């Protein structure tokens, strides 16, 4: 994030941080409430939990870690990370397919 902000700018940032904080707390409560709800579908349960976790992750990374207004070089580093992370997850899911060479059973 740019280091050229004055105190007034940071007051604005503080309000934003507090908003993100409340959103994270609400997200946590909704996640737990959803787990107590008797939803029969495993897929829907997993989707709800992971969707809220992704939203919370976006808020932490975007605003607390300032990724929403970071420099290009940091985005470059993260783009490479996303590429390799996605590859790792793809290999994991691929290895579970019956036709794959690396079958777990």
């Amino acid at each position: 994030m740019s280091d050229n902000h004055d105190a007034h700018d940071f007051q604005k940032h503080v309000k934003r941080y507090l908003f993100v904080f409340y959103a994270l707390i609400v997200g946590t409560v909704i996640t737990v409430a959803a787990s107590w709800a008797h939803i029969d579908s495993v897929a829907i349960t997993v989707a709800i939990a992971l969707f809220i976790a992704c939203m919370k992750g976006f808020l932490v990374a975007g605003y607390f870690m300032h990724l929403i207004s970071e420099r290009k070089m940091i985005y470059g580093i993260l783009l490479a990370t996303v590429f390799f992370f996605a590859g790792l997850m793809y290999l994991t899911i691929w290895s579970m397919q019956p036709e794959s060479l690396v079958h777990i059973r």
Partner: protein
Amino acid sequence: MDIPYTSEPRQDTGLFNAKVGIWLFLASEVMLFGALFSSYILLRVGAEPGEWPHGLLNIPLGMTNTIVLIVSSITVVMAWASLKMKNFARFKLFQSITLLCALAFLGIKSYEYHDKFTHYEVWLKDGKIADGHLVENNADTIVLHHAHYVDKEAAAKVTHAWQEREIKEEEITIKKSDIRLREGGKLDMESYGPWHNTYTAIYFTLTGLHALHVIGGAIVIFFLWGPLSGMWKTDPERYTNRIEISGLFWHFVDLVWIFLFPVLYLL
């Protein structure tokens, strides 16, 4: 010789050294936890019906720890903002709350670990399996609290944590002579430690590694808050940068927990 760009950003990238360093480090951390998450997916999908436990962990405690980490995240970022606004006293206050949150998180996690190490599965000679917390281990008997007999057929149908919570629990006293014996004559009973099954193995690995990160982050924050805080007077810009870097690591630790909590506790 002075190292360049320790405080002031480079013209071309707009970044100081430590900022690039911490993001490269966090990128490697994403891959480390990513590998463990992929292990979790493989183990979970590969588990036979009824073999993957649901509702084994204490959700209120997990939720409390989530909130504790969220509070610590806001105090870390507020501490950094306080330094940007030249308010050192407020920075000290916010970081002391962060440190208290770190201690609270580790305290709750330790309690949860203790809970699992006293939680036993006991195989009886008549084929039944008793499951509960070992509270008494006498010469002739053992007593399990919050216990129930495991119905393997019913357990195979459990797919949600809320189904597990509906199982009625009671206190069970078991004669040691009724417990099956293993080779070597030991009683066939085992706690829910990392050795118990693939779920507890990945649970302890993921949360243990995460707890080590909490400890590491707390140590760095403590040193910057206490012994190294004199740098605020000599080189405030560099000190503020260090606080930002330690904060980025701390937020990453929070980020990992945001995914660990639903995956391990709720699904």
